[in-house]
């Protein structure tokens, strides 16, 4: 193993690019078991800035119907964390944008936190989003291991998160903060309301040290553009899953979708 410290790709990205950053989530092992790395390559080639690879889980409580369904399909395809690492083994030969693994804590615990982190480092993962890992727990038990393997832990904030807690989260975050756009599970609402705009402005005016990406309910160019006015960019999940679900040709349909979001055609 090389001992050269490479700057984390997420931090690098946010240093170089300050706006309209597009992060795209999809579920590993979906729609077909071995689509994972191909989808990642197409995402990069189409102009996505960050890839979030979902680790499927039997009980995804923070997710709405679309991502629940993709988790179920992937599990029926017999995806596992072990297999995901296998699929990502050579990913850094073809993909050099930041990769984040997103999933629930239980599969990580069963894999073994230490093993999980070293495997992430080995395949070239840059960050983790584990929605049901609480901040205090992270600080007490996980922070050190994550850091030792160069993994940034991304925290969520919501419209209900108090200002004091947002500041606390900001202090303990690296990379970026995941701003959940409304009080909802993934994919639930469409369009951006005036109360959401108030919330976006409120957080923007806090001048956090970390950049913010807005996620949940971002589905098209319009919502991406709107979110990008208040944050460094946005995250698309369910809408992309819906594209994958129907795609006959992954390459062309991923490209069409991503470019429609970014306004390139």
């Amino acid at each position, binding site marked *: 193993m090389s001992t050269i410290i490479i700057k984390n790709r997420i931090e690098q990205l946010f240093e170089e690019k300050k706006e309209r950053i597009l992060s795209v989530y999809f579920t590993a092992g979906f729609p077909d078991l071995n689509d994972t790395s191909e989808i990642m390559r197409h995402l990069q080639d189409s102009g996505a800035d960050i890839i979030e690879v979902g680790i499927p889980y039997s009980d995804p*409580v923070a997710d709405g119907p679309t991502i629940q369904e993709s988790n179920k399909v992937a599990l029926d395809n017999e995806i596992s964390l072990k297999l995901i690492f296998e699929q990502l083994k050579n990913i850094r030969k073809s993909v050099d944008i930041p990769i984040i693994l997103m999933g629930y804590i239980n599969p990580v615990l069963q894999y073994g936190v230490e093993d999980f982190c070293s495997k992430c480092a080995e395949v070239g993962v840059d960050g983790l989003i584990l929605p049901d890992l*609480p901040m205090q727990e992270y600080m007490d038990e996980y922070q050190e291991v994550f850091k030792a393997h160069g993994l940034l832990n991304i925290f969520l904030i919501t419209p209900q998160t108090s200002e004091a807690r947002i500041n606390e989260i900001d202090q303990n975050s690296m990379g970026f903060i995941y701003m959940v756009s409304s009080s909802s599970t993934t994919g639930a609402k469409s369009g951006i309301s005036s109360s959401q705009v108030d919330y976006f402005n409120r957080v923007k005016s806090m001048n956090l040290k970390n950049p913010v990406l807005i996620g949940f309910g971002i589905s098209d160019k319009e919502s991406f553009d709107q979110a990008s006015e208040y944050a460094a960019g946005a995250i698309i999940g369910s809408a992309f899953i819906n594209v994958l679900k129907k795609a006959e040709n992954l390459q062309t349909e991923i490209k069409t979708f991503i470019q429609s979001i970014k306004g390139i055609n």
Partner: protein
Amino acid sequence: MKVAVDNRGYYGKFGGAYIPEMLYPNVEELRQNYLSIIGEESFKKEFDHLLKTYVGRPTPLYFAQRLSEKFKAKIYLKREDLCHTGAHKVNNTIGQILLAMRLGKQKIIAETGAGQHGVATATVCALMGLECIVYMGEVDIARQKPNVERMRILGAEVRPAKSGSKTLKDATNEAMRHWINNPVDTHYIIGSVVGPHPYPDMVARFQSVISQEIKWQLKEAEGTENPDYIVACVGGGSNAAGAYYHYLDNKDVNLIAVEAAGLGNNSGESAATTVLGRPGVLHGSKTLLMQTDDGQVVEPYSISAGLDYPGIGPIHAHLFDSGRAQFYSVTDEEAMKAGILLSRLEGIIPAIESAHALAALGQMDFSKDDVVVLNLSGRGDKDLETYIKWGRY
């Protein structure tokens, strides 16, 4: 060793609050307020009054003469089956709805498996005039029709959980998702000592009235507060937690927990979490959990819908881990036979959950003078269909 939740929400290695940030404000609001609210004089007065005049407490501690002769010990039944709505579940729903009202909540959600907790929640919502939505797995809706209609008669909306395996664990997922989507005006009444801290401790406190009564009732009957054994079934573990609560630190009292073994622990169709589970995280707490090597939650099986849950409350994971409680498992067959036995010996048709606790008596060795308190958590009315299908009586 004192068995109590620590300030981080753990019982030993188990517990905590593994929740997404979307649930944090609600759970934190509860955590900050639950102890002060349930400690208020006015709360205690209202809670005690409703338990007495509405639920029908104290429930009897009944000396079961013929059952005692059969098992050669002095067996007392704590008659939670005589609670209004037919099970211990209502002790908790009364407590939680009073708490929710003091937090200014106007809407109530709940999950249910067999429908007992759903009925107990719909009941207190009718009593207090609050809106009530109960999530129930589609599979359970089909097999627990009478309880579904009871909830509807009481004015609750029963929403089918159509995700995953469509049973209790999925109903719980749906209730949590509902809470994420409705964070301000809604309180989630969890039905057992499961979920993120402070739920396990809060529910145990509301159920602790069971052991509080056992103490003085046994003193009257036997001249001592302390039985040699307390036996209870464990689904999530709320009736057991309530029956153990005031004895947790009293080593003279043996705590016996009974899990459902379905068709047998080696059959692949069981719900005996301490036998088949490993530490993991489900529904907000770290506990023992039935799961695959890859950390996917396994669907359990038991004839009893109330015990058909892949985890147990963190307090029970700790009681198991520390050796404070002994765990037994009882199959469908053993439970059904025990249910018939109690019906014939004592004229009491038990809930099939409670019948599991009864069946464990047959696996235990008693001395003649041993005093055993068995928590009869519910009555068998809801299970008539299952008894009829089983047929051997």
